[in-house]
């Protein structure tokens, strides 16, 4: 059981770091609370859904911003979506970027938008990797026979 406790410690450390660094916020904790024995994979599922959604949105944004004549309303609606979903799962930094992005859309500032898109990509990938690592840790704990510790 030494392995389990060690893994669990690792998990807590890592998760805490994520919160500290602003990758995740309280909403994520909320999600975790929604997970129980009847739905052991809820968080993972939601997050996966988010990833998919995000990738699509990012593609769409890229496409939209590459148009000769940029439809800022369209772009805005995409960003709005992205903001909504990222805030739902607690991907804080992503949400923040979305807010900025929206401002640029209102301004119809193409440069700003493009920069924001780049940032958005970056943040998204970061949070994705972090979350995936977190999940892997969870898997290991589970495989080792332990249970995932709750975050405060």
């Amino acid at each position: 059981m030494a392995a389990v406790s060690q893994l669990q410690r690792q998990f807590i450390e890592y998760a805490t770091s994520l919160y500290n660094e602003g990758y995740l916020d309280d909403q994520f904790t909320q999600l975790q609370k929604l997970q129980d024995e009847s739905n052991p994979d809820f968080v993972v599922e939601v997050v996966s859904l988010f990833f998919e959604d995000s990738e699509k949105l990012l593609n769409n944004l890229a496409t939209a911003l590459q148009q000769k004549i940029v439809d800022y309303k369209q772009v805005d609606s995409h960003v709005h979506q992205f903001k909504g979903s990222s805030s739902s799962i607690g991907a804080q930094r992503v949400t923040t970027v979305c807010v900025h992005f929206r401002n640029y859309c209102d301004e119809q500032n193409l440069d700003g938008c493009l920069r924001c898109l780049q940032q958005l990509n970056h943040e998204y990938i970061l949070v994705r990797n972090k979350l995936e690592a977190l999940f892997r840790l969870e898997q290991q704990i589970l495989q080792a026979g332990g249970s995932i510790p709750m975050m405060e």
Partner: protein
Amino acid sequence: MEDDNAEDMEVEILSSMWPEDIDAAGKKFNVEKPGVDQDLLEDLTFNEEPTIVDFQRLLELTNYSEKGSSQLSYLVKNWEWKQENAVRLLREELENLRKQQHGFELKKLEILEEHRFENDDYGCDKRPVSILDEVYEIFQDVPKKRTDVIVQDETLEIDDECDANTVRYWKQRALHFEKLLSISVQREQMLLEKLEESIEKLEKQSSPVEELSQILKRADNFLHFVLQNAPVVIGHQDKELRYRFIYNHFPSLGEEDIIGKTDVEIFKGGGVKESQDFKKEVLEKGIPGKREITFETELFGAKTFLIYVEPVFSKAGETIGVNYMGMEITDQVKKREKMAKLREEIAVQKARETELNKTIHITEETMRAKQILATMSHEIRSPLSGIISMAEILSTTKVDKDQKQLLSVMLSSGDLVLQLINDILDFSKVESGVMKLEATKFRPREVIKHVLQTAAASLKKMLILEGHVADDVPVEVIGDVLRIRQILTNLISNAVKFTHEGKIKIKLYLITDPCLEDQIKHEENEPQSHGNMVWIRCDVQDTGIGIPETALPLLFKKYMQAGTDTARKYGGTGLGLAICKQLVELMGGRLTVTSKVNHGSTFTFVLPHKVPQACDSSDETDDYQDGDDNGSMDEDDVNCGFFQFKTQTLGSLFSCNGYGPTHELTRNEVGSDKLDRASVLENNNTNHMTVDQDEDRPFHDPCIKKNRPSNLNMMRVDSSTTTSKSSARHKILLVEDTVVNVMVAKRMMKQLNQDMDVVNNGVEALRAVQRCDYSLILMDVCMPVMDGLQATRLIRSYEKNSNWDEARLAGVDITDQMSREPRKRIPIIAMTANAMSESAEECFTNGMDSFITKPVTLQKLKQCLEQYLPSQ
């Protein structure tokens, strides 16, 4: 040849060829043991009268054929020679005797001389008369003296001196001659008589008849002697194949039955005609011949004869008949056949032996193969699994990113190799005949579901996996689950591998027995389930890249792949299909494929399965009620025939349609939760598609969904509302477009023990409101098509006016339902992302009751519900 004599004394001798049971007529002439009845012969006195042969006639007879005449000439020569011999011998004898006589006479003379002229000076008057003097006539002439020779001369001397004596002399002379004449006449008489005698004697003693008949007799006796027990019959037939002569014929037949008749007139039965024809042939061809003929007659049963027939030619060269010889060889034929049979049997035995040896050899090889496989399995897999396990453990230790990457490669490679080894070993197993099939009960629907689930879980592409199981497929069948699973997995993985977009379908249904035609007798076009055997057909259909026609025949060969670079592009060993085919065929089925390039392929296999006799499904399903997770099956799911899996990166979600008659009214949370999620996902997925493809695909009305088979959720929700109004649950409508938000909200609602319907925009919300009574609506503000504010406005108008005029004005295609009573006000809660721009003011203005800010938390929702739902 005509020889009446010989015929008269003919003795019929029994030959061993004839059966014992001949009638009395035949027995009369049978001499079983000739020696015994020899006295028979003794009683008879053979009066052989000397016959006079008519040489002329004889010549005529023998002239019929060369042989005859030659024989006759021979006989005659023989006799002549004998005669000559006799003559010669007699002459010699005569000569000898004459010589002897002469000798004796001389001797006599000598002796007489000696004795006669003894003493001359004796008294002359007295003549010494010796005892040898009888020769002399006493009273005759005076004995002569030596010196005195008087020759009695009987010659006629005419002495002129004695004239007087002439008459007397001539009278004397005449008398003398008379005497002589009479003597000579007598002598002549005697000679004639003697001649007569000798003529007779001649004839009697040395006539050719004698010779001939003797020769005949000798020959005849010899024949008799030799053939008395021999199974040989000899005969002569004329041009018309009438018997002129028969020797050693069947005992029960008499001469009169044979002579003058043809074969077919004498016998009746099998083989008679054949022998007759053969004889005719010989007659015509003029060439002697041998033939083996099997007879089957009433007369003597079944016998096989070897007959030799030769033609008889006249001096002119024409055929005048045939000589025929028949030998019974029935036993020999039997023996010959036995020998042939024996030889056959020996050959068969030898063949069997070689077969057995082969089998032994094969069995030995199989044993060895098994051993090798077992050894290989162990030897190869142990270290391999060691490698993989170590890599896994390593991956759980503290490793940095790069190391993790390397490890994951190691692990996936290891898995691949393990898979490969398993494939190869499986293949060897099937090939060497070591593979044993199990027969266990299993549920085909479960298997399909699991296979699809597993495939979906590891899918990286956007594909739909579907399973269709026909109703008539039995709940449980007997078969080798493991192998079937293996086959399905293989086919599915191939399908997934080669399909980049679209659907992969597994279809399972019953068919009539493909081979038996008795099917037609039983039920027309219905799958045979009598004798509890069913044929299940499985189609694995994909919309992938397809297979070119040229590659189709090679597909199932081992190590073959459809293209030369397929391995490079798609990986794989090329063993999968070969294994599948082998396994299918081992189980008594067939695996086939149809394909169209760029459209897709369908792999089909048909397998026979036994159906277990009585399955108490009602009891078993209770077991499935408890428990959750993938293993759980409700009553419906036992008969569930349709599965659909969409690709997820992780996890397993499914929607299931029950064709069963009953619906569970009180569902456990788990089941419905899953289902809710499923329908949400479907929406989300369709949503995704809309977003991606930029189509204005209308979202399905949640209430319409209940008509679609794939959304059981609505059906369940419906049933719950229709059956009980006093249900604890209220209907809540969530109007939200972002999938993630939907999922989170739904989950939270579940935690709060509430069902929730979901729509994705304002228009959908209107429709939902029209169809159903909702206790609460959670309305997102920013949505495509129609935002929340407008939707709320229109709903409020509907509530007020009981019609959708405003909505139609706004351009929404929606119809009124006049039967509805006026709706009461539904609490509508706005979900705002930003409380500022989507301000509270605006919300309230448009008719909303309250708002909650996103992100939605459990607490917020709880408060909402508490506030706006009637307490229960």
